């Protein structure tokens, strides 16, 4: 197959290539083993059920959990919704339709799949505290503790942030929650499969993760639901045939679940060596780009971050035009210029990153197939594009003249 321009894929935090070994494991479950796992009285059903239980075991191994504690869903968005809304409604202090139904703690740098369910709960009579991170982007245990109330039901803090890759104080927050008899949910979409998880050691009650971020197929994910100390119950959001312990009705996506299980197994097997490889590549980006140009900053805590994500701001250039200059590299921009809002990333703003820096950030995220040659190419292409744009940037000139950009009376429009 002819490949005229080879694209460098550095957007693995958005999604990953499905591993061919995963695809191979899935293939029999479309046209050969096509039974409904809920069919209890013939072999078609048994084979499908067996396949799902193997995947449940593979997923449980990844989290150091029990297979019965794994609920398969359509992805991390559904898992987050089920965990947050399901727990809030199950443990509400007063019935639906009333106010003061209970308190939830989360934070402003969560994914929308956590923020929006929390906002819905506010409309349904719950109170939610949205913590703000420090300038290093970390949500600390101390901040959670200060927000705790007598009526706090649930704390939801992501393990690693999807935009900047910083790691929140997860085992400590879990321990705090357990000491206070509060449920702890973590969105581990950028963590599970990349970093070690032990739900006992890490004191987690509910954990969401996704298949397509860990080289599995899209449309499938998991929710870990603790079964003892404490036994966590959730109010289902999808009612029907009672699949997945009644928490998620609907005929199981057998092929997808098989692929997800295989993806979990492969990630678990590659563990330490893959982490070390990605870390070396990310550190190369984090050091080479600021060394090549002035006014370049790595956003968030310098060390407390997952190996595969970095977020770098290039002062005085705008993100979308920067992306235009590196058109053979696929990555994400912190700029939301193509959307109607014209607002820079809410996560970067939450970190206190200045407007001119938040508008010019790139999220570069690495994966299983990222090579050192691709990282080197990205460094030189980004450097070239930033220099091209700075040559026409009025902000760069003003900064060079020593003028404080924040003191200028800009004419907003």
């Amino acid at each position, binding site marked *: 197959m002819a490949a005229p321009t080879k694209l460098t894929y550095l957007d693995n935090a958005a999604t990953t290539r499905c591993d061919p070994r995963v695809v191979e494991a899935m293939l029999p479950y479309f046209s050969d083993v096509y039974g409904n796992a809920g069919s209890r009285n013939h072999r078609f059903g048994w084979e499908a059920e067996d396949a799902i239980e193997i995947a449940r075991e593979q997923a449980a191994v990844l989290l150091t959990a029990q297979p019965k504690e794994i609920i398969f869903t359509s992805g991390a968005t559904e898992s987050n919704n089920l965990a947050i809304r399901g727990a809030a409604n199950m443990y509400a202090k007063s019935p639906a339709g009333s106010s003061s139904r209970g308190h939830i703690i989360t934070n402003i740098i969560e994914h929308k799949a956590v923020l929006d369910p929390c906002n819905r709960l506010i409309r349904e009579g719950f109170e939610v505290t949205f913590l703000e991170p420090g300038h290093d982007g970390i949500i600390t245990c101390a901040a959670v503790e200060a927000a705790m109330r007598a009526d706090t039901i649930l704390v939801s803090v992501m393990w690693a942030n999807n935009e900047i890759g910083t790691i929140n104080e997860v085992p400590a927050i879990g321990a705090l929650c357990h000491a206070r008899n509060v449920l702890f949910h973590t969105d581990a979409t950028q963590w599970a499969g990349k970093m070690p998880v032990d739900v006992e050691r890490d004191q987690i009650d509910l954990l969401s993760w996704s298949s397509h971020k860990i080289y599995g197929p899209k449309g499938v994910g998991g929710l870990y639901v603790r079964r003892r100390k404490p036994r966590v119950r959730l109010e289902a959001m999808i009612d029907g045939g009672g699949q997945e312990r009644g928490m998620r009705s609907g005929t199981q996506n057998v092929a997808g679940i098989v692929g997800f299980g295989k993806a979990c197994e492969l990630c678990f097997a590659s563990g330490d060596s893959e982490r070390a490889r990605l870390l070396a590549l990310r550190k190369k980006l984090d050091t080479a780009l600021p060394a090549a140009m002035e006014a370049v900053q790595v956003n968030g805590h310098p060390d407390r971050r997952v190996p595969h994500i970095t977020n770098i701001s290039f002062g005085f250039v705008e993100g979308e035009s920067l992306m235009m200059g590196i058109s053979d590299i696929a990555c994400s921009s912190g700029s939301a210029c193509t959307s109607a809002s*014209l607002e820079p990333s809410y996560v970067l703003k939450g970190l206190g990153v200045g407007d001119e820096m938040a508008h010019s950030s790139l999220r570069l995220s690495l994966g299983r197939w990222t090579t050192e040659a691709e990282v080197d190419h990205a460094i030189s292409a980004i450097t070239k594009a930033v220099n091209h744009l700075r040559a026409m940037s009025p902000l760069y000139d003003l900064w060079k003249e020593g003028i404080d950009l924040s003191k200028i009376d800009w004419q907003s429009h």
Partner: protein
Amino acid sequence: MAYSEKVNDHYNNPRNVGSFGTSSDVKARLDVGVGIVGAPECGDVMQLQIKVSQDGRIEEAKFKCFGCGSAIASSSLATEWIRGRTVDQALEIKNTQIVEELALPPVKIHCSVLAEDSIRAAIADWKKKNGITDTVAATTTHA
């Protein structure tokens, strides 16, 4: 988003990038008008400088732009269009003409508005420096 060929061309080969000196230099020059419009928080800032002859003709135009590809192309195009025109002729340029020329999609119309504003602002600055008052109001003025 896929850009038009013209936007890509202006991005890769911007016309008339530059300035007639530092911000304090140009402030002192009566033959130069400066317009700076937009704001960093909105993701685009355009700076247009015009060098105007005594009879009111734009001899040279230079731009600098912090913004997306459409913003860069809009300001680059503006410098091409105003060169050689009198200031009054330059004020006739409408953002819709820029939208049409560059085939800007609806979400990028504000880039063309900004380019029109930068022309008006630069001319207003030049007129103010030279004590010229007229009936055409500038939508934006900037020191």
